[in-house]
């Protein structure tokens, strides 16, 4: 398969997944904002619930450049939902996913293209006012359902060839990245210092964190008990049966890369294997002792390296011969 095509497939699913995660995160923030909240450290960006989506996505600076002045829920929503100048807004994600799909129409099924195209055509005609009039939560539900639908259409219609594996790879890389970021920022917010671990926690805040990764029901089923930080870490990092846990994401990523690897592309598989083993044999107590923030930063660093290896070996390879040719041209 063409590297450019594989790269587009990979980014179709990353963008759809990112749109879904953004919708989840904003939805939970929106619901939480209707409850009274504790100001933990006033003056800190994360002390304000509406800043959290920005901090988690690494977009706080971009936001303040675009919307100087006091932070407002409306402005954050505008920025994160429909702003075409924010490359991670839901609008931009769906646009990029659809543009990528358009360039590789031959590599996906017509059902997949029709599905994404219909979503884009609908989103394209929306204004912030029309979304607000319909209900912002309904809109987030719509985006989540569309993402589920696209994943379903992909799994249900696509030939299990290389292209399929790159689409799946994008989904899980994005998901792992998102779960790690949400956990890091939310945990930080809830427990500004590690010494507070085991102290009183706000049930709603923890509930919101779990809901934003669709793990609230899973938590209740698994533990049938109050929410504790240790269990949240176990659930979202280590368990191999929670669909958005880091462990499950790395399971999938490792399997996909093992299937894709040949003699010249062993490094991505090795890196994924290493990350996978770390989660497979990890213990929640150890993570807390090590420091969750440090643990997650380390994970995100390694995920980033893995992404670079995937680029070099599959998606945007640089060949010595092609470089020589390019130099000949520029001379």
């Amino acid at each position, binding site marked *: *398969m063409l*590297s450019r095509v594989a790269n587009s497939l990979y980014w179709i699913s990353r963008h759809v997944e990112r749109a879904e995660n953004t919708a989840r995160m904003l939805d939970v923030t929106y619901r939480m904002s209707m409850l009274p909240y504790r100001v933990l450290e006033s003056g800190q960006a994360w002390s304000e619930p509406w800043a959290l989506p920005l901090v988690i996505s690494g977009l706080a600076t971009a936001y303040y450049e675009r919307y100087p002045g006091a932070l407002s829920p409306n402005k954050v929503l505008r920025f994160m939902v429909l702003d075409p100048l924010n490359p991670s807004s839901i609008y931009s994600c769906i646009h990029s996913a659809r543009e990528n799909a358009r*360039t590789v*129409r031959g590599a996906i099924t017509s059902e997949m293209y029709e599905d994404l195209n219909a979503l884009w055509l609908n989103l394209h005609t929306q204004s912030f006012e029309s979304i607000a009039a319909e209900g912002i939560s309904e809109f987030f539900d719509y985006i989540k359902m569309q993402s589920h639908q696209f994943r379903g259409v992909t799994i249900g219609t696509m030939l299990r060839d290389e292209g399929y594996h790159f689409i799946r790879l994008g989904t899980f890389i994005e998901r792992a990245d998102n779960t790690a970021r949400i956990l890091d920022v939310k945990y930080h917010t809830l427990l500004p210092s590690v010494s507070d671990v085991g102290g009183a926690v706000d049930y709603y805040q923890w509930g919101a964190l779990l809901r934003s990764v669709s793990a609230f029901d899973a938590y209740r089923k698994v533990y049938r008990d109050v929410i504790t930080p240790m269990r949240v870490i176990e659930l979202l990092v280590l368990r191999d049966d929670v669909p958005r846990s880091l462990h499950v994401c790395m399971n999938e990523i490792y399997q996909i890369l093992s299937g894709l690897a040949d003699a010249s592309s062993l490094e991505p598989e090795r890196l994924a294997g290493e990350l996978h083993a770390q989660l497979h044999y990890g213990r929640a107590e150890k993570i807390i002792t090590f420091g969750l923030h440090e643990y997650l930063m380390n994970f995100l660093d390694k995920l980033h390296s893995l992404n670079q290896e995937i680029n070099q070996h599959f998606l945007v390879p640089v060949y010595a*011969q092609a470089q*020589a040719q390019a130099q000949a*041209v520029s001379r």
Partner: protein
Amino acid sequence: MDRDSSAAKPAFYNEMYQADGSVRGHYAAYAEWLEDKRVEYLLQKQREADALYTRLGITFAVYGEETGVERAIPFDIIPRILDAAAWSKIHDGACQRVRALNAFLRDIYHDQDIVRAGIVPPEYVTGNSLYRPEMRGFTVPGGVYVHVAGVDIVQTGGDEFFVLEDNLRTPSGVSYMLENRNMMMRLFPELFSRMSVAPIDHYADLLLENLRAVAPAGRTDPVVVVLTPGPYNSAYFEHAFLAQQMGVELVEGQDLFVADQQVHMRTTRGPKRVDVIYRRIDDDFLDPLAFRPDSVLGVAGLFSVYRAGNVTLANAIGTGVADDKSTYIYVPEMIRFYLGEEPILQNVQTWQLRKPEELGYVLSHLPELVVKEVQGSGGYGMLVGPTASREQIASFRRRIEAEPAKYIAQPTIALSACPTFCGSSIAARHVDLRPYVLSGKATTLVPGALTRVALREGSLVVNSSQGGGTKDTWVLEQ
């Protein structure tokens, strides 16, 4: 349903109705089906078709408007029907023409017999800016230059067909021919059981077969790719569609590179050699080392690999010289010269104003004629006598008198018309026909073509950029 009373106006040939209003034989079964259909029913089908085209993303980009604007090309739900006899003439005539044009290209890039025989003047060959001196003496695989040709044909009577133009560079539109058929089968399956419409869906197989047949010698299981300028090209949908239908890679210039005198593509499994490139990029942009140095769409070094015979381009480089208006005039002569046959399809009568006796005739008949620039295209630098004002004619006359050799003239042609659904009624609209002729293994075409229709009443302009639409074209089997 009722039809527009203007449908039988005799100024042009109506493909469905005779002058007395009775239905022509090959439309009888369709007319019978149509008889009890209400406007609401047709309107609903038309809306269904429009919605499907938009949802399927069968669009073309509109240049000059807001970036990224895509439109669905208007599609008319009433088929254009050709009987077997008409088709056989079109088939034989178009194939004959393309065989002669291939022979002409082979000749002008080698010995130029046709120039030495005094049939085509050298200034129209080597003096043409579309002639590629780089191609002199180079023999393309199988001697095939034009692998895909779009021959634009108009009908003026039951058995009267004229060729308006040959498109020998990168003709587009075949995806609409194929998608229009899919759409009709989706909308009106019952019609296909009533009438025996010749199938066309093997087009992609035939194309692939022909492309594989012209691979460089010794390549077993040759790798074919479609080369596109990218998603912002107006015909991108078609490029992707054809690659998908053939089951080959759709590549952009950035996906290919040259190493060791071979063309390779960048794949997830490392470099892979490419043998045949069905390119939808103009000559000028193919290789920045050989042609336009500012091209970012092409592949550096491609031309040198091509000249070394290590990759095949379809169509070949330098075919533009044969679809120029000045060369068009000589196609009937080419058919006689190379094939020893009489042309099956006629050219539209064309006066060459560089000839004094023809110039005299044209100048005294300007209000009836269409005058075109030899090198012009897209309707620029053109006089349409019957619709032009007295002043326009006078000013054009002065331009002709200054440089007569720059112009040709043709009579205004009464294009045939087909019944077309216009929202509240069915009315006659003018149409043309573009069959796609494939060459490689043999010269052949599927029994079908793209019918373009001028949707505005009385209009003769069928271009999609100017209010034109398309129809499915049905060739009836005997």
